[in-house]
Structures are given as C-alpha cells and as structure tokens.
C-alpha cells in the first residue's frame, strides 16, 4: 500500500465517525482529490464537505471561526507554501483563541501537503514545516510512516484545539513504511523511538525519517546497532530521552531535510553540546549551492557508505 492511500483511508475512517465535522479545501472533492489525499471522504448528515474558494488566508480564519462555535474543522491544503498566505491567522488569531477562558470544545486542523518532491522551480518547494509551527508555537506533526500516521491522525485530527498535521508529497507514491513498533513514544506524540542500540543515536527531523531508517538498517547489516528516533513535532520538546541515549552511545547522527535557516535540530544540538561528551557527531542537512532555486531533485542526499565509515572511526 502506498503512503497516500493509507493516510487517505485513515482520514476517511476518522472523519465519518464524528458529528459536526466540516471538511474543506481546494479541489478536495473533485478531480484528483488532491492527488488521492482526500479521496472518498464522507461525513455524517450533521457535517459538510466542500470544495472551497482559493483564499488561504480567509480559509484559515474560517476554520478558526468554525472551531470557536464547537465544530470540527479540517482544512486540506494542496501545498504548504500556500499556508504562507494564512500566517496572520496562524499567529494572531490563534493567539486570541488560545487565550480565551476555558478549554475549546471545537477543533481545527490544517493538513498541508509539503511539496518536497522536487523539480517545482523557484517557487513551490518550501518544506520548512517547523518554521510555521515556530512562528506561533503551534502544535504541529509530520507523518512519515504507518505507525506515526495511525497514532497522530486518530488522536489529533479532530481533538479539541488547533494543530497542523503535515504530509510529504515525496512519499505519496512510495510504499508505506512500516517500522517496528516504537520502543518509546511520548504522550504528546512529539518524539518516537523505533529502535534502541548501543553504538550510535540517529535522530530524524522534518521528513528525513526514510533516510534515517535506511541508515539504521544499513548500519545494522554492518554490525552497528543504533537507536533510531524521529521528531514528529517541531514545537519545543524535551530532549532528555535522546540526550540519555546519546550519553550511552556517545555517537550522534542528526538528519534534517528542512530548508530553513533555523533548523529544529539546532535546539537538540545545543542541548547535546552542553550535556553529552560525544565521540562522534554527524549533522546531515540540506546544502544550498548556487543552483538551489532551479528545478532539481530537492531532497536530502545521503551517502550511507560514508556515514558507516565515519561512525566506525
């Protein structure tokens, strides 16, 4: 099963369970159904699905308005960079709403597709999901595999309050990754640990989990057992679990494919530098050469042999 098919099924099953649910977005119920992401969505008679206008700023405000009235609003967005138009709502409107007395009864979830599949041109390749969350300390989640998808969508998609749940366009047509059952997952679903090993600690940010898993598996074959973490939420999280693991392994490998100047992994690095005496530290991030704006494959390239060699040294 493909990544997009699995997520679509999860969303559809969850959406049809709830009353007063309003699903909206551009072309969510027509054409390609946003590339299969929103195919065959159904709601109860108390709900509504509609193809919206092309007005991202207003659609974000609209979702907050529905949430304030107790509805369950979900805005499916074709591209994360369209959300740039709604930043006023994400920051200013959300600040008012979360300052209101009492707990919210309604919910609002924005589900953008991060266009990280490359060859888009100078525009439409923004993948800095953490930047959106950071602007307003917004709860946000990335989905990379079967396990995080199930847990995050089931527990967050229609739960009271606001959040953004982002999916990766690059992974849409890839086979769904089915990792081992997590050995650790915090209550807020911000940090997942998929393996515990004593030789190195691997931690993945943004949508770099497939690369991290590939490295983990290759190292295992080479006799190097690693711990494997994925950071699913870019809002500030407690690094103690990762720090404790890195203290044991003394080797830290960080992957972050976000194209931001302010990478989420810097927060972990800062903590690790002060708390852990590392024998080896590898930080794999996107490189920006003179051609980064022209259409290209646009993904975090990794050289597994080189990584193995460097970790073995």
């Amino acid at each position, binding site marked *: 099963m493909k990544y997009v098919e699995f997520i679509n099924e999860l969303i559809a099953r969850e959406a049809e369970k709830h009353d007063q649910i309003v699903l909206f977005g551009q072309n969510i119920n027509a054409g390609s159904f946003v590339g299969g992401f929103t195919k065959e969505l159904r709601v109860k008679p108390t709900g509504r699905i509609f193809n919206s206008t092309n007005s991202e700023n*207003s659609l974000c405000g*609209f979702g907050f308005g529905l949430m304030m009235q107790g509805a369950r*609003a979900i805005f499916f967005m074709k591209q994360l960079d369209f959300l740039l138009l709604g930043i006023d709502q994400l920051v200013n409107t959300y600040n*008012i709403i979360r300052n209101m007395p009492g707990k919210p009864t309604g919910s609002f979830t924005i589900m953008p597709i991060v266009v990280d599949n490359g060859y888009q041109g100078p525009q439409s390749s923004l993948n800095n999901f953490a930047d959106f969350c950071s602007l307003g300390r917004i709860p946000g989640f990335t989905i990379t595999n079967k396990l995080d998808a199930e847990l995050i969508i089931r527990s967050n998609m229609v739960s009271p309050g606001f959040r953004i749940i982002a999916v990766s366009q690059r992974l849409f047509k890839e086979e769904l990754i089915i990792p081992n059952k997590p050995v650790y997952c915090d209550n807020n679903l911000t940090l997942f640990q998929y393996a515990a090993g004593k030789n190195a600690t691997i931690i993945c940010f943004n949508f770099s989990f497939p690369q991290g898993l590939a490295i983990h598996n290759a190292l295992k074959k080479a006799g190097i057992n690693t711990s494997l973490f994925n950071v699913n939420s870019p809002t500030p999280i407690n690094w103690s679990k990762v720090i404790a693991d890195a203290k044991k392994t003394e080797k830290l490998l960080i992957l972050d494919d976000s194209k931001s100047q302010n990478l989420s992994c810097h927060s972990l690095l800062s903590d690790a530098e002060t708390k852990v005496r590392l024998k080896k530290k590898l930080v794999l991030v996107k490189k920006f050469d003179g051609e980064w704006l022209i259409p290209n494959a646009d993904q975090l390239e990794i050289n597994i042999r080189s990584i193995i060699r460097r970790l073995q040294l």
Partner: protein
Amino acid sequence: MIINEKEKIQIAREIIRLRLSQMIVNEKCKSGEFKIPVHLALGHEALAIAVSSIMQGKDKLLLSHRNIAYNLARAPLLPIMNEYFLKPAGLAKGRFGSMNLINPRRGVAYTSSILGNQFAIAVGISMAEKLFDGKSITIVIGGDGAIEEGIFYESLVMSRSLGVPLLFLIENNGWSMATKIEERRKTINLRALSGSLGVKYTRLSGNDPYEYINKLQKLRASIIKEKNPYCVEVKITTLGDWRGPKNIEYPDGKFIQYHAGSAPNIAPSDWPLIKNSEEDPLWVLAKRFGEKKLRAVAKRQLAKLRQKIS
C-alpha cells in the same frame, strides 16, 4: 419593531452613557494611566447602540481594534476600565486589554487588532450558525481601511458562496490613521463591489439611532430568512480631531481626525456634545428631545459613572 417613546429615551440614555464613559476613559488616557493603547470611538455611539439593540439569542459580534463603543454597549464601564488597567476584575480578567477585548457571554465573540482579520473568522462562525443553529446571525464590524485588505474581498466571496447569515458592517469614517481616503487610494464603490458578488448592500448615515435600529432589524430578519450575507456601509465621523504643526502648506496646522490615544480637546461635562452637526449623535438626539432634557440626563449619568468607578 416599533420603538415607543419610553424606549426611545432609554436608547438616548444609553448613547449618552457611551459618550460619557468614553470621555472618562479619555481622561485616563490624558493622564497617562493606561499601559495599553486605546482607540476611542466618539461619534460611533448611535451605531453601537443600534447594533447592540438588534442582537438576539446566539447572535455574535466581531469587532476591530476600535471596539470600545460596542463593548460599552454590551457591558458597563467599570469592568472595561478594569480591563484597561489589566486587573483580574476586568471584563476579560485583564487578559485581553483594549484592542482584542471580547465578552463572549454577551456575544462579543472576537476582536482583532489586525486590519480585516476578523472578516474571515466571522465567515466561519456564521457557517457554524447556518449548519447547527439557523436562528442567529453574525455581525462583523470593519472600517474603510479594513476593506482595502484582500481578506475583505475573500470573505465577501466566501460568505456569498457558502450562503451564510453574516452582516458586514463597514464604518466608513474616511480616515486610516492620519491619512484620508483620497490621500491613500481610489474610491472603493462598496455597493458595486458587493453587488458584483450578489451581496446585497445598504448605506446608513445621519446618526439617527432609531432609524438605524429599524433598518438593521429588518436586515437581520432578511439575513436569517435568505441565508445570505449583507453589506452595510455606515458614514460615520470619529470625533476628537486635532491639528498638526503649522507650516507653509498648512498655516493652521493640518486637520487630523482622531485615531488613537487621548483626544486632547475633549473633556467630560454635563453636556458632552462635541460637534454641532449630525456627525455627533448627541446633536441628533438634542434635535429630537431638546438639549435641556438631555442635559439633565447627561448630568445624572456623569455623576453615576463617576461614582461607579471611584
């Protein structure tokens, strides 16, 4: 609804209360007692009372940074003043200040200090009203500056497309901060803009609260019946003007309509009239009831307000 004489005088009393309450707030602004910014709405009292009067049941009101008149129409001065002092006894427990002051219990669901931001929230709220209630409307207030923002157009399009019970009420005071409309843009023909989207339009002016109430009440009923938005443009003057420094271009100083902070030339009095024209709702009321009668009302109101906040 026919407003009887007793109700009419009660409405006049409320308008005078709003005027004097703002004048008292202005005194605190003058003495620099607030840490928060204040945007007075002197001259907006008749419209604010009219809007408040037509609200029923679960109707919602969404406001801008210049929300003081509407909040005073829905709550007494003391909790608002306490909010401005950021006290726990404030209307919103001192957590929202002036530009975002809300009062959900009385239908003031949301206010925005970001120009036009509130329009989209109002579309969402009215969509929920349409889906889950069907008996109430949402009223969203913005100004002639806010309609320059793209979100106004987007919200008009969305509200008409979704057929939601929403009243866009545009207070056109002709100014955005210190610039007049003609100094910053071409005229926006709101009637034509609304009409192009199939949104019905009406214009109000003259500061007659009873005429405003009658017209807005009819609009409310029509919005619920037709399940469609409506746009009302109100010609209004924000009183409390001042003059910039004298120079060759402006020998008497450039006229600036009040925007924010204190209005230096305004002070509370037994007869709080600011302008001898229909730009001032009190002048309109005085024409109807006679100045003498209203002076007596104002004197009592001022004493009462001062006692309450002392």
